[in-house]
């Protein structure tokens, strides 16, 4: 079985897919925070994006800055074919593990 992505890595990859061509650092951070329903540190998202890029699961390109960020460039991310394959494998693994169980799980009396 291939390396299964962690849940945070999956959340980041899915956020990039959802945001499409608006997927840059801050937007990804807010999307992940909204989906996981908790405050996320910018460093956590940044470290995950760097790791995913090193693994070849995401690609990035530099975009132009805006006045609110004092003209500093944005880095836009997209999921690579390998990233999509890993996401599909993670979903398959998840579904396989849960097959046969009814949710929510109940304690034995």
């Amino acid at each position, binding site marked *: 079985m291939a390396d299964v992505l962690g849940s945070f890595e999956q959340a980041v990859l899915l956020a990039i897919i959802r945001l499409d061509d608006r997927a840059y650092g801050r937007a990804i951070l807010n999307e992940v925070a909204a989906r996981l329903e908790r405050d996320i540190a*910018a460093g*956590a998202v940044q470290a995950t994006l760097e790791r995913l890029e090193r693994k070849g699961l995401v690609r990035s390109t530099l975009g132009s800055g*805006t006045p*609110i*960020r004092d003209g500093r460039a944005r*880095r836009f991310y997209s999921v690579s074919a390998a990233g999509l394959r890993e996401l599909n494998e993670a979903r398959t693994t998840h579904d396989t593990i849960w097959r046969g169980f009814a949710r929510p799980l109940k304690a034995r009396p």
Partner: protein
Amino acid sequence: MSNPPALPQALLHLLLPVDARETVSGDLLEEYREARIPALGRLRANLWYWRQVGGIWLRAYWWFAVPIVFLLVVHDIFNTFRAPSGASYLDRLPTLAVAPMPPLVAVGVFVLAGVYGSWRTRRRAGGLVAAVGTFFVVWLFMGVWWNATLYPFAQAQQSNPYWIQAWQWSTHRAHPPSFFGFNPDTPDETFLRWMFWDNVGGLFFLGISMLTASVVCGSIGGALAVIAARWRPAEIHKS
């Protein structure tokens, strides 16, 4: 437009690798101005910014603090829980293997943090931030650890002849030195209070020596990374 405090902004620039410096600081600035200031107000938005910078430091360098913290805990445990005679269980080991170990490890870790910080950020000052940050994390841990273990450790120590002797020597000297008019080393000082002030003194003096070591060693590490950068395509800025 509002700006985050200058110090964490400067630290952030010394923490981030070259290719992430502009984009990540831009992301944080945008979030700070567009979302945090309107929602939280200036003070809490500034605290949020500090937290983000601290989080980025921790993710990059936390593991440098681990060996020093580990040695500190081991040293404290063996120093507290001694044989009934008062001897340390570490006395069986050769002196040269025990006594110089904590300072040597600390110096080595600070130098390594300096090298890695400079190499990662391609700035000599990046190494200094890594080393001094390591000191700061260890120092904070020391404060928490010594407070958390004060009572249980004092319970064990006050029944050991080594510690009773140390307490009596300290509190029954003829003319104990005064510290700005304050002196806990008085004959009527309880063991627990004496331990507390011993920890406070340790936090202060060990803190100063570790801070000095982290600045010196971090600078040396940064300089070593500058030399090593000659074999790397992109040059380290001498900032």
